């Protein structure tokens, strides 16, 4: 049988358009692969086989009818289990939503349905997206397709595990502070976090509303541009969506980097010897990313050293603002309208306190209580307001730098994928793992992470791939500069083959 698992969307599109394969055949191929690999990797929580086969049939009928075919018609995909899917179990990887059947689709899911894309299943994540490794999921961690003893990153780790293992050509993911870029980096994928407001949040289970951004992961930046175009745009159900028309990201891809100024922020190449709440960077990771930046220079870009001194405060601001918004958003789980209800509850108060005690995992409880604390009278000014003011400093600092450069290039994560088990013991794990993603998230900026080589991990057993684990480089752009980050990533991938490397799986 032909190998479809690692083909890019544009390659699958060509095969479908030339009638070399049907959507039903493709869908069946991916479903079989999921059945074979998912028991070990735990990327999917729910496999939507019946829905997928019905959607594939509809897609094949549309393609046979001679009517115009949308770009994602008949192409299978996976959705992080934070996107509401009408009538299909949606859990946020939390026991409190274990049996939740959404009455409606998220706007993004509805857009993909309209294109006749094919939903293969719902992927694992950290509970309510609280984490950077999928280890806080109520359904167990997902595994990295490159080495099953290691994390696939998180919170969108089910999506990264699925695409990296060839269990879906692309996946929907969400990011609040690194949850797309970090897992993409750790699994050798391309990942896109949009400008905040570029993609509707409607129907996506809320985490931290001023930060939540819906994006995609795929095998190439060209695929990211294609999927970005499909899911972006103003939504009457999300008043924070931008009002400008969606650019033709895919058609506008431009690999010419002459005249493009790429800023390299010193603070994103942490000296391994320093540690003030930050962890140092692996030497090999730093070297791979520097090689990546040299490649951009070779392709015509002008490299400009820049400084973002407030970077070090990003994770601290996030550690206040994120739990604050979480504590507010998770107040809706009250055991009354939907979600888990305790069988032990004697009165109304116990419906709340016991349902929430049984339904939420430890990280959700940690964030709810942290948020409750920093928002409470007496601490509000010292923590929440302070964090909001420093957030402003970070936003302004980026805005100033983007007067001098078009994009920024730097590492996505300070290290390669760690072994499973390390996140559990450290309540600060996520804030540290995502320290290079969080500042741009706080500023609502667009970014892509692209694979730029491999590095040997500093801990754990020898990796199956002798070169080690994937390393990612991120390209950050100014607000609404999504096309710029796509173009730089696209140029890099026209000249390199890191994005075409895949793990050897059965």
């Amino acid at each position: 049988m032909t190998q479809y698992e690692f083909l890019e969307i544009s390659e699958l599109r060509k095969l479908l358009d030339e009638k070399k394969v049907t959507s039903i055949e493709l869908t069946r191929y991916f479903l079989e692969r999921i059945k074979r690999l998912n028991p070990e990797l735990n990327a999917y929580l729910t496999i939507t086989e019946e829905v997928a086969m019905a959607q594939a049939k509809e897609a094949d009928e549309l393609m046979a009818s001679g009517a115009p075919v949308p770009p994602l018609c008949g192409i299978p995909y996976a959705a992080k289990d934070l996107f509401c899917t009408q009538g299909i179990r949606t859990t946020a990887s939390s026991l409190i939503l274990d049996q939740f059947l959404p009455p409606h689709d998220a706007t993004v899911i509805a857009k993909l349905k309209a294109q006749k894309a094919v939903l293969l299943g719902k992927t694992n994540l950290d509970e309510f997206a609280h984490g950077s490794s999928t280890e806080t999921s109520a359904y167990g961690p997902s595994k990295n397709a490159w080495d099953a003893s290691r994390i696939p990153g998180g919170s969108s780790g089910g999506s990264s595990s699925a695409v990296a293992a060839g269990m879906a050509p692309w996946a929907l993911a969400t990011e609040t502070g690194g949850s797309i870029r970090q897992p993409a980096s750790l699994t050798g994928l391309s990942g896109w976090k949009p400008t905040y407001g570029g993609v509707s949040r409607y129907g996506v289970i809320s985490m931290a509303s001023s930060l939540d951004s819906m994006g995609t992961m795929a095998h190439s930046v060209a695929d990211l541009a294609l999927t970005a175009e499909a899911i972006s745009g103003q939504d009457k159900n999300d008043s924070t969506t931008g009002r400008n028309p969606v650019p033709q990201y895919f058609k506008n891809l431009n690999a010419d980097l002459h005249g493009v100024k790429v800023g390299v922020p010193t603070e994103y190449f942490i000296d391994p010897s320093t540690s003030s709440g930050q962890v140092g960077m692996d030497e090999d990771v730093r070297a791979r990313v520097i090689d990546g930046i040299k490649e951009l220079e070779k392709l015509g870009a002008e490299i400009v050293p820049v400084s973002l001194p407030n970077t070090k405060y990003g994770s601290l601001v996030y550690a206040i603002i994120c739990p604050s918004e979480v504590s507010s958003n998770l107040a809706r789980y009250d055991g009354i309208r939907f979600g888990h209800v305790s069988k032990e509850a004697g009165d109304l108060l116990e419906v709340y306190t016991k349902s929430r005690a049984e339904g939420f995992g430890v990280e959700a409880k940690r964030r709810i209580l942290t948020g409750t604390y920093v928002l409470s009278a007496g601490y509000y000014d010292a923590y929440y307001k302070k964090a909001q003011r420093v957030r402003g400093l970070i936003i302004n600092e980026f805005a100033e730098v983007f007067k001098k450069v078009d994009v920024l290039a730097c590492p996505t994560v300070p290290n390669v994928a760690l072994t499973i088990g390390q996140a559990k013991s450290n309540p600060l794990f996520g804030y540290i793992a995502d320290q290079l993603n969080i500042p741009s998230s706080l500023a609502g900026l667009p970014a892509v992470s692209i694979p730029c080589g491999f590095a040997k991990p500093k801990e754990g057993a020898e990796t199956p791939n002798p070169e080690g684990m994937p390393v990612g480089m991120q390209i950050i752009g100014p607000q609404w500069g999504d096309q710029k980050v796509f173009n730089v990533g696209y140029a890099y991938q026209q000249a390199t083959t890191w994005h075409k490397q895949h793990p050897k799986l059965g």
Partner: protein
Amino acid sequence: MASIDENEVKHLAELARIKLTDEEVPQLQRDLSKILDYVDALKQVNTDGLPEIAQVTGLKNGIRADEPMPASMEERDAILRNAPATEGGYFKVKEVFKS
């Protein structure tokens, strides 16, 4: 150094309507203290006179007409189906006022 004691943790849990176990209280006391220590360095940043930023879009209020939206009985049923208890098309809750 910021820190938080076990009584404060219990009070927060009451406010957040989460019943904690005896094991969870000291664990959360340690975790929250670590987090508060971690963010302590923000105090060094001079933010005098700076505005508080709650959102990044720069958008002003998005306003729509205040009109009822059509909803079918099927939609209503799909919503109610997720509720632990319903009666006559309503959510059913335990008594709010003690009789």
